[in-house]
């Protein structure tokens, strides 16, 4: 009886978060430089629902702006925000450390090194290539760095694998950053491009980017969400979780791999967008408590909504230029988080 009540409350949260995500996406489609009048866009969207007929009065050319430029950007922002939040929450679960972010085991540094190499070796015209090598190489770099971290970190014996894994991540990050700096020093001309990549970008999003990341993100999301109960078991510590019959090493390996797969794939198309992976899961915890059964699904939905929303000011505030999304996430996210923290502290 009691548990049924808890379950239905979770569904209530999931449904309201899904509505928030949907509203954010519609807002994201409505606001932006150029394109049709904002209020016509929801009408056009309704018109596209089967059996609904509304004349929105949008010209085909205007709709192209919305559908080919804004829509992929909104969808990509939702995917990136959802994936970073979910990966962050999962990493925090397996390492039982709320300060951990999805870049902990070197994925960001590895991807950054990959991107730097593409800019440095490919020169200024990587678009000449048949396939854009940037996402592929940065994805490969991120995965390789975490693989390396895992091999080194788990080779010290099982007793300290948790700490040694994190330390190995620190070492691999430093190494990759050092190589990246060296390459940058030798290739001054690409510093600007690499810097822009590091600050994160959604501005050049296309449906191609969405198609590129979607398979990886779907696999990663499904696997991580299926671990929500086991992450709750890990909350009592390694020893007790083991005594309760959990194969901790297997859980940790699968969760780290799945979270890395998701993170590396979104980093490959959007660069480094910090902050989301820590702040969104925390905000969710402040609202619904620390159980991963709630934190994981809500991080997906609200992480997506958060990045879609903060992407709006990033493209309109300094029109026609863009503010890097990483700057906006911190600029709007940090005060919001502090406010939430303060309200919760006071009310409890």
């Amino acid at each position, binding site marked *: 009886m*009691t548990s049924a009540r808890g379950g239905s409350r979770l569904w209530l949260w999931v449904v309201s978060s899904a509505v928030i995500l949907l509203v954010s996406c519609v807002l994201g489609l409505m606001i932006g430089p150029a394109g049709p009048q904002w209020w016509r866009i929801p009408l056009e969207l309704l018109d596209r629902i089967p059996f609904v007929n509304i004349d929105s009065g949008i010209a085909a050319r205007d709709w192209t702006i919305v559908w080919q430029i804004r829509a992929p950007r909104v969808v990509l922002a939702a995917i990136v925000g959802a994936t970073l939040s979910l990966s962050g929450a999962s990493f925090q679960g397996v390492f039982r450390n709320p300060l951990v972010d999805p870049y902990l085991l070197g994925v960001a540094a590895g991807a950054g090194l990959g991107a730097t190499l593409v800019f440095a070796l490919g020169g200024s015209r990587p678009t000449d290539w048949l396939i854009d090598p940037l996402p592929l190489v940065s994805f490969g770099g991120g995965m390789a760095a975490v693989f390396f971290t895992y091999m080194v970190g788990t080779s010290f014996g099982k007793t300290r694998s948790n700490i040694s894994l994190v330390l190995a991540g620190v070492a691999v990050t430093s190494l990759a950053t050092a190589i990246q700096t060296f390459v940058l020093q030798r290739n001054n001309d690409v510093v600007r491009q690499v810097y822009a990549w590091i600050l994160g970008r959604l501005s050049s999003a296309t449906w191609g980017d969405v198609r590129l990341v979607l398979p990886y993100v779907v696999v990663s999301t499904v696997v991580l969400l299926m671990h929500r109960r086991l992450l709750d078991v890990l909350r009592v510590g390694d020893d007790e979780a*083991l005594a*309760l019959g959990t194969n901790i090493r297997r859980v940790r390996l699968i969760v780290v791999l799945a979270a890395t797969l998701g993170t590396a794939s979104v980093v490959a198309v959007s660069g480094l967008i910090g902050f989301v992976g820590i702040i969104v899961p925390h905000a969710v915890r402040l609202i619904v408590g620390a159980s991963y059964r709630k934190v994981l699904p809500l991080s997906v939905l609200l992480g997506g909504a958060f990045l879609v929303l903060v992407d709006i000011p990033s493209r309109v505030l300094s029109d026609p230029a863009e503010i890097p999304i990483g700057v906006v996430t911190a600029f709007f996210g940090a005060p919001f988080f502090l406010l939430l923290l303060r309200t919760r502290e006071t009310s409890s």
Partner: protein
Amino acid sequence: MTVLGFCELRVTYGDHVAVESYNDILHSGEWVCVIGPNGAGKSSVLRAAAGLIDYTGSVAVDQKEIPATSARWRAQHIAFVPQSPLIPHDMTVEEYVLLGRNPYIPYFGVESASDREIVVDVLHSLDLEGFERRKLATLSGGEIQRLVIARALAQQAPVLLLDEPTSALDIGHQQHALELVDRLRRERGLTVVSAMHDLTLAGMYADRLILMHQVVAWRKEARPKC
């Protein structure tokens, strides 16, 4: 029937020897109390049996050597109550006791109705009815102690290992908790191994006492052969 057997158990942490040639054979429904000062190796004996540390020699449950078993099999056969359990403060009582059903739930599965019924039963037998929705942060020390025992009982394992189960409690609560374990032992035929400080309490409940002194076990009766 032999449920739990130790043979020439030796536990080391680096160069430090914690337990040396520990032998014992426990039958169904038996309660053995390991007593001794801090650092005598009591906890190490229990942790070896729970599969939490490496050792040499042999520890077997139902004739199966501990290292050869999976974590899931062990948790179905041995329930371990740690000395200082980690308490996630915003978990509810029901969620916490449900963790004891973990060894029966498939990897990607969720708790079934029968798991929840078992939790209701266990909470009833430990006088924790009506606590289901309470957050752990709101419980007293004595209630937490009973809750951790409740989680272990939800595992429905034939062997119960208690590592200083009552050290955080006052004398009244200590006795209450141990009486509870004793009652369950009689009702369900549990085999209990507990590590304890308090000689009086240990003498009141245990069938046999084993004194750990400077990593070696001493006892009144003859040392069992293995």
